[in-house]
Every structure is written in C-alpha cells, then in structure tokens.
C-alpha cells in the first residue's frame, strides 16, 4: 500500500487517549528522529508509543504503559501490524501479579475489562495470538485478531479495542493504590521484567531488523 495516508491513524488515536494524562517526555536521546515517543507520568514508570513502516506494505504500531513497581497496577500493551488486506492486533491489560492468587487484583483490573473483552469477541478474525511465548504473558482478557480488511471502515473498527482498553487503563491509574509491602513490590518488579523480556524477544523474532534495538528498549 504505497499511499501511506491510507494507513489507520494508530498513533494519533492512541495519543488522543494518552493526552488525558500529564505526560513528561523522556529518553529524547533515543527517540530523536524516530516516530517514537516515551514519557513518564504520575504512578507510571514509562509510556511509550512508536510506529514504523516496513517497506510500503506494512505499518507497525506499538504502545506500552508500565507502572512504577511501587503501585498496584496492571500494565498495558498494544501491538498493531497493518497490511493492505489484514490487520494483526493484540491489546492487553496484563497483570503485574499472579492474578489467580491475587484475586482482588483480578477483580479490580481484569474483570472490569471483561465487558470490553466480550464486546470485541465479535470482531471479525478474532483468534488467540499466534505466538506461543506472547500468549504465556497475556492476561485472561487480552484481545487478539487477524482482521480481514474487507472495507476501509474495518481499519478504525480494529483500532477500537486499543483505544478502549487504553482508556480503561488510564482510569485505573487515577486511583491506583501503592503496592502493599516489599513482597508485593518484589513480585510486581519480577513480573514486569518477565513480561518486558518476552515482548522484546517477540519483536525480534517477529520483525528481525524491522525494529532497531534502541526502539525495542524504549517500547519495552
């Protein structure tokens, strides 16, 4: 698709949601000259959003939000891989604890996203995310699909889970409590590190040189 104006406005729509938060830009030495931005915010260690094109045929977008490990908050991941005829997507609000064991966490953050998870089950092309490693770190309410683009409106329809999950996440941040004690902080730290590691590895597996290492490190 040589005419890049036909790509979905991934970054613009995500940035609109992020504008609800007071953002402070970081990592400018790594993001300069790239379609990549990183920020910090109250209770948030890092928000990153980036996009790139691979040739004329593929438009990739990634957005992540990682909380400070001292807060009892999930994390947010959005992957967007757009081609002329289909869009492969993944969006998740993933736990930073074992959400089988920590039931209050599951109820507050995952079960409250469940209505969105159910709503987007009707999205054409809904499917478990294909990568086995990534599915391992996904929550019980992740949405993934390979959406066939049968008409142009489908591009915006495929964006909706990303913006709606992100909007819910931003609501969580507002009243997020501090993590309860050093053991919980340690658990959150361990989990965030494991999730970041898996996604870094995935981007390398999936796109090879399509993503510069600096870009991957800013995003995850």
């Amino acid at each position, binding site marked *: 698709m040589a005419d890049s104006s036909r790509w979905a406005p991934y970054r613009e729509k995500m940035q609109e949601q992020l504008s609800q938060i007071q953002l402070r830009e970081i990592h400018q030495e790594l993001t300069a000259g790239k379609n990549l931005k990183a920020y910090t915010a109250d209770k948030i260690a890092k928000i990153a959003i980036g996009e790139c094109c691979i040739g004329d045929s593929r438009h990739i977008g990634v957005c992540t939000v990682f909380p400070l490990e001292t807060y009892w908050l999930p994390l947010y991941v959005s992957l967007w891989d757009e081609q002329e005829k289909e869009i492969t997507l993944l969006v998740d609000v993933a736990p930073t604890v*074992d*959400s*089988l*064991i920590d*039931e209050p966490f*599951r109820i507050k953050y*995952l*079960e409250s996203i*469940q209505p969105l998870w*159910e709503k987007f*089950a009707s*999205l*054409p*092309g*809904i*499917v*478990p995310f294909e990568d*086995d*490693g990534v*599915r*391992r*770190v*996904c929550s*019980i*309410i992740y949405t993934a699909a390979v959406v*066939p683009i049968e008409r142009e409106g489908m591009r915006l329809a495929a964006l909706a889970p990303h913006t709606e999950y992100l909007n819910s996440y931003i609501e969580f941040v507002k009243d997020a409590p501090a993590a309860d004690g050093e053991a919980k902080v340690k658990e959150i730290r*361990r*989990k965030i590190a*494991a*999730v970041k590691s*898996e996604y870094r590895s995935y981007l390398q597996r999936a796109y090879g040189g399509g993503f510069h290492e600096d870009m991957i490190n800013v995003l995850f």
Partner: protein
Amino acid sequence: MARVDYKDMIKFTEEAIVKSKLLEGLDLVPLETYDGMDTRSAWEFKTPMASGFYKPYTLKGSTKIEKITYGELHYMRRAIYSTINFTASDDYDLPVFSVEFDESATRIGATVDFMPLVDLSLHPEYQEKYLSPLADLWRKYRTIPGLTKEGRCLVQRRYGPWAWARETMSPFSLDGRIEEPEDRIKIIDAIIGYARVWLDLLKKAEPVKDPVYKQEMLNRKKVMQKVYRDRDPGGEVIKKIFGDEKHHLFVSIIF
C-alpha cells in the same frame, strides 16, 4: 442445528479411555481414600435424577501420581457430564491434565487442557518443558467447527463468565461448544492426543528439588484445586442431587 438423543450421545469413557487403550500398560490401583475421604461411593452411583461413576486411581508402586480419575454423570437422560483428571503428586510439577466433556441434545461443551502449576510468565522454561509439546495438537484441533466459527477462533472463551477458571488455563487450552453431531466426536481425538502427551511427560518426570520453587508451585496448585472445588458451576448441580458431603467427595476427585 441437529439435536442428538440421549441414546445417541457419545459414550465418553468407551471412546476416550477404552477404545483408545489410553491407560493400557499403567498398573492402576483404585484410590480408596482421597483427602481423608472414602471414595467408594463415587465409583458407582444412582439416584432418581442421576447415575454414573467417578473412578479414581493411583499407580501401583509409583509416587508420581496423586490421582487419575475419569467418570460420567448422566443427568435425567438429558445430558452426560464426563470428565478426566490426571494430577501428579506434590513432589512433581506436572500440569494438571483436565477434561470436561458435557453433552446435551444441542451441543457439547468441552475443555481440554494442561493447567500449569506455576505462573508461566515467570517460568518460560515450564512452558517449554510441559506445554510446548501440545503446540501442534492445539493448532490442529482448534479448527474443529464450533471452536472455530465463521473465521473466528473462539478457543479460550468457553469459561467467559468464570474469570477464576480462565486464570487456571494454559496458552494451549482447547475449549468451546460443538453443535453438529458429526463434529462432536472430533474433540475426542484431541483429548486422547493431549492425554498421551501427558502420560509421556509423566514417564520422564523428576521430583522437584528446589524448595522455594516447590512452595510456589504447591501454593498455586492448592489455590487452583480449591477454587474449582468451591466454585465450579457443575458442582452446584452435584450438590443439589447428592448433598454436601458427596459433593465434596465428587469435586475433590474430579478436580
């Protein structure tokens, strides 16, 4: 959508266990006592509303197995709720092989999985060792009509209303609803395939040595067993038919 009469429903144990010779070569010994309960009243039961059996076993001369259970509950000649559960003993971290196979006139609701005993995001090596052998089977059988419908693959959504149950599932669970009579039997092949992988893993299993890891694993295992025994909606039916005491016994040997 075609309906299936009770008399034509799949004979689950016959198909999944007997004809497949799934447990052939294993020296099974009836497990008469489980968690301090006498299990014998579960081996065969009959009431005006329900009949069936849950047969729990262990392996003669082996410390690897907590229980190998299979069973069927026939409800008012309208539905058959069948199950398999393979659980390793506490010294081993093998995932729990769990099958629910609920057939009614209109459909089968099935779940087949290796439920992991650790948080997989923290233990990628666990997935590699115990779950990755399922990858090809998962990709093959998730296309069964019903699990995939109109270009949408709906596995891992059967437990939609029960978030706690989805928390126990692996990235390779197969679950969903299969309606057409000719498609129903296909999930039996998936169950047998998964079971054979588990039994192969059992042969190679070594006891867990790291005490910290073992504690983490056992903690998750006990939470998992407790939530199923306390909350499984099928358990409510069992409670109504058989009362609290037998309910506790039945769900304990099923989960």
